[in-house]
């Protein structure tokens, strides 16, 4: 995984985390319109980034489209990545 791929992956990790936060908050505040707007903005960004990642580097989910050969199983897996190597 080169530094450009790692940077995009980290950006996706960040936006996913923002989505976890809005998700949990909205579970107990389902009528908070401001939080919903923030959630939907994150969700749109997440779709854009994961699509860009899939087209460049392969899918982050097994339900995504893949080139041949099946890209889902390509290394590195999440526990194998050196997240600090490009800092």
């Amino acid at each position: 995984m080169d530094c450009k791929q790692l940077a995009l992956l980290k950006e996706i990790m960040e936006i996913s985390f923002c989505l976890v936060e809005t998700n949990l908050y909205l579970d107990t505040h389902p009528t908070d319109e401001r939080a919903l707007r923030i959630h939907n903005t994150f969700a749109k960004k997440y779709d854009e980034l994961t699509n860009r990642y899939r087209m460049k580097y392969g899918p982050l989910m097994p339900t995504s489209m893949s080139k041949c050969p099946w890209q889902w199983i390509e290394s590195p897996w999440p526990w194998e990545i050196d997240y600090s190597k490009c800092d």
Partner: protein
Amino acid sequence: MWVYEKKLQYPVRVDTCNPALAAMILEQFGGADGELSAGIRYLTQRWHMPTNQAKGILTDIGTEELAHWEIIGTIVWKLVKDAKPEQIKGTPFEAHFVNHGKSPFPHNAAGYAWTATFIQSKEDPIADLHEDMAAEQKARATYEHLIRISDDPGVTDALRFLREREVVHFQRFGETLNIVQEYMDKKKYY
């Protein structure tokens, strides 16, 4: 159902080869108040929850806990993957190593295997949500003990992130308890 996303929730950095610390981190991999207990506890309690907020929060926090379990396993693995047997000998990781090698395994720091007796489900939303709030506080306390003994800055950083998550989960379970309590009071439900 679940679909795996090929990423960690947090970019785990590990700065040392450190079998002794790995052995202690296993507390959150297979201990009573660890991430596996949390995930299985919340996902097990969903069936009888009376409100949509409660069904949602148990599903979503339960799922996040499984992601935390993966982070903990990754920390343990990265702490030991390059260790030579001589670096393991004489450390608290040695007993783990003779059984499991370097693979993370769900037991606590003292080697006691994970068991469903660590968790509970009572088909009683009030009892269960109180258990969940206590579980979050106990997990937070465990993270604070681990942060005190950690001598790896990268690991400490990840532990601080995970500790913060327990604080957020406690908050959400508290809100859920209020919602469920109000709902049950309205229904005069015994």
